[in-house]
């Protein structure tokens, strides 16, 4: 049973790390700040969830896994807040998504 839990847990954690690498390469390759924000959201929600839940399952249930899940709950509250503030400030500094810019400069 412990082996099954460790396999499932580390499988989830490796999947989360792969998702994080994909999202990080997306942050490197996507063209502007709003699309990069979309890629960063993948790290903050799916990557963090898979890694932390996987490690909590693999380590067995106890105080360590409870702390890992607390970290996950905290990240799920704070990262959308920071992302919202960041989008507001990027917009206030005059950055625009390309399609919106074309619509507004049209007739």
């Amino acid at each position: 049973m412990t082996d099954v839990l460790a396999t499932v847990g580390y499988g989830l954690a490796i999947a989360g790390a792969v998702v994080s690498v994909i999202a990080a390469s997306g942050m490197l390759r996507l063209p502007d700040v709003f699309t990069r924000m979309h890629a960063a959201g993948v790290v903050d929600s799916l990557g963090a969830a898979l890694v932390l839940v996987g490690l909590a399952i693999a380590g067995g249930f106890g105080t360590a896994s409870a702390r890992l899940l607390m970290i996950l709950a905290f990240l799920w509250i704070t990262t959308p807040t920071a992302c919202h503030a960041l989008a507001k400030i990027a917009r206030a500094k005059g950055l625009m998504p390309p399609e919106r810019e074309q619509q507004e400069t049209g007739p």
Partner: protein
Amino acid sequence: MAALVLALLTTAMALVLLRALLGPTVPDRILASNAFGTLTVLWLAAYAATFQAEDVIDIAMIYALASFVVTVAVLKYVEHGDLGAAPDDVPPAEPRGGRQ
């Protein structure tokens, strides 16, 4: 197997750090440093699993708290140029009489 998680997260951190160094605008750099902080929290959790060091999970928790506060503080500084600035919808306070 946890060492593989550590290696992959280190790769992701290197890519995000490259964006923070390259990023043409200020919000790009703030976004990249915020994602770097999140990845650091995950890296610390994977470190704790790899080396059987449960204390590091507490460090990860504190890092998550501090990273959020620092991100919001930097965002406020970038927006207002002043960490003590009032929000937009609050009128500025009247100066006190005795404080010339």
